[in-house]
């Protein structure tokens, strides 16, 4: 097994009874890259990650991590892996410092300055009991323990969940630093934007199957967003449905809802002809729009590339 590949799965398959977790997953994470593992909730991201960590055993196929077997070489492998669970829960009543000391000792010792550096970066108070912490602070403890022993491979399941936007940026900085330091990062997410910012490549999983693996650039800087405009008076849908980049127009009385692909300018100009009370714009959840758009048909993929 070549050392250029950090994670290799071949026909990796997991069934829970007759329920399919993942099926026929062939995935390659190159050493030193950041791979975003994208997919809607329930697509099989966590199942895949648990198979890589040997918490689950495959129904079929196999995985190779850092050239080793996840089960046979678990002890040696887990020393080189930093793992952030998706459903983070901490055993015991320890303070963050106590818990991190234990995890550091268990991994053969971690320089305490490394822990305090990471905690400072994430503005985490180590003296508080983990059990009493908010979800965001627990997530920070989870991140510190994943990064603190500078593992060759970081496996992060939904790493930004519960973090506020500022801390999400800090986390993305940590991922960039890890990449510079030669570490490999395999992180799952259902948010396209954070993966776009940090990953080299993106693997997309849907319904337990690998839908695509793409360079981030080829995804394009797609700016699909949902826009909701509240007018003073009722408006006519026809006025907006023909605008470039605007689709899914729904008008109910004075409220317009639509999806905009690309620049907002045409829509804003059209809206300006009326009295605008409020304008809301949100990046849609990957689950709702991105996947369905990207994989509606093969033609849609070419369309996406053309945009890039």
């Amino acid at each position, binding site marked *: 097994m070549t050392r250029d590949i950090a994670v290799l799965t071949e026909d990796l398959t997991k069934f829970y009874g007759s329920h399919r977790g993942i099926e026929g997953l062939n995935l390659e994470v190159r050493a030193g890259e950041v791979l975003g593992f994208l997919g809607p909730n329930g697509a099989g991201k966590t199942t895949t990650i648990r198979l890589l960590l040997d918490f689950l055993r495959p129904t079929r196929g196999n995985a190779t991590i850092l050239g080793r077997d996840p089960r046979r070489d678990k002890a040696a492998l887990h020393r080189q892996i930093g793992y952030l669970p998706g459903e983070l829960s901490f055993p015991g009543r*320890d303070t963050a410092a106590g818990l991190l000391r234990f995890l550091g000792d268990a*991994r053969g010792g971690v320089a305490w300055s490394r822990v305090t550096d990471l905690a400072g970066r994430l503005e985490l108070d180590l003296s508080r009991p983990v059990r009493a912490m908010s979800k965001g602070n627990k997530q920070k403890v989870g991140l510190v323990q994943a990064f603190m022993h500078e593992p060759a491979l970081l496996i992060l399941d939904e790493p930004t969940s519960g973090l506020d936007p500022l801390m999400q940026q800090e986390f993305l900085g940590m991922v960039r630093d890890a990449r510079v330091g030669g570490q490999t990062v395999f992180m799952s997410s259902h948010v396209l934007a954070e993966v776009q910012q940090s990953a080299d490549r993106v693997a997309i999983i849907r319904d337990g199957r690998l839908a695509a693996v793409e360079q981030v650039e080829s995804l394009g800087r797609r700016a699909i967003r949902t826009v909701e405009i509240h007018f003073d008076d009722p408006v006519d849908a026809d006025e907006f449905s023909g605008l470039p980049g605007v689709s899914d127009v729904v008008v109910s009385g004075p409220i317009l809802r639509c999806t905009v692909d690309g620049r907002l300018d045409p829509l804003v100009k059209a809206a300006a002809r009326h009295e605008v009370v409020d304008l809301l714009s949100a990046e849609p959840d990957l689950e709702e729009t991105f996947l369905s758009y990207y994989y509606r048909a093969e033609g849609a993929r070419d369309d996406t590339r053309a945009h890039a």
Partner: protein
Amino acid sequence: MTLALTRKTWRDDRRAVVGWAAGVAAFTGIYTGFYTQFQGAAELKQDALPKGMLDFLGIADMLSPAGYLQATVFSLIGPLLVLMCAVLLAARTIARPEEEGGMELLLANPISRVAFAGQRLAAAGAALTAVAAMPGAVLLILVPAIGMDIPLSRVVAAAVGLVALAWCFAGIAFLTGAATGRRGHVLAVTGVIAVATYMANALGGMVDGLGWLRYLSPFYYFIGTDPLQTGWHPGALLLLVAVAAVTTTAGVILFDRRDVGV
């Protein structure tokens, strides 16, 4: 790295273990301390209760020191407390963190599954042994102190039997938890086995023709051999330890083979 998980397990279980140890010690101390005041009342109780009831409760006679200790510390409530603690600690090794979600971080430690189970077992086993040894420790002080007329070696034999009984049921509880990862299963399976085998020992001792039932019961090998009257029965104790060893080994093997945290 060495035994970090064992130390962490102790730290997490500390409150529970201290509480159980104090409770079991207090129970033993209070009952034993009553011995001198109890003599008159014991006679009444002995006469008041029908013979069958006394046999069922494992109370041969309450007048001699041996009979008194057997009736109080070693018959029902003593084993009950110790077994509850055994089930609780055994359930905490695997089933509880697996249900509560803390398992993933623990299992991500760089040790094999077998070593993981071993470290958890070492911590739980030591803690349970300390709790189960409490009656013996208290009696070693109290029996001479209040002048109960019973050889200490027999008291130790019974007390060691209690530890062996605790190991036996902890093994069964661990096996259930390691194989299923469910706390409810641990409580149900171990509870049913404990009640059934307690009944088997009691009924086997009372009903003619059912004597063979006793040999199926861990309680028989613990107290049915009458260690307070007859001293050591190494074979019986070893049998309890063997059950613990076999169930524990089976639990580790099954845990090593299954999916965790599904």
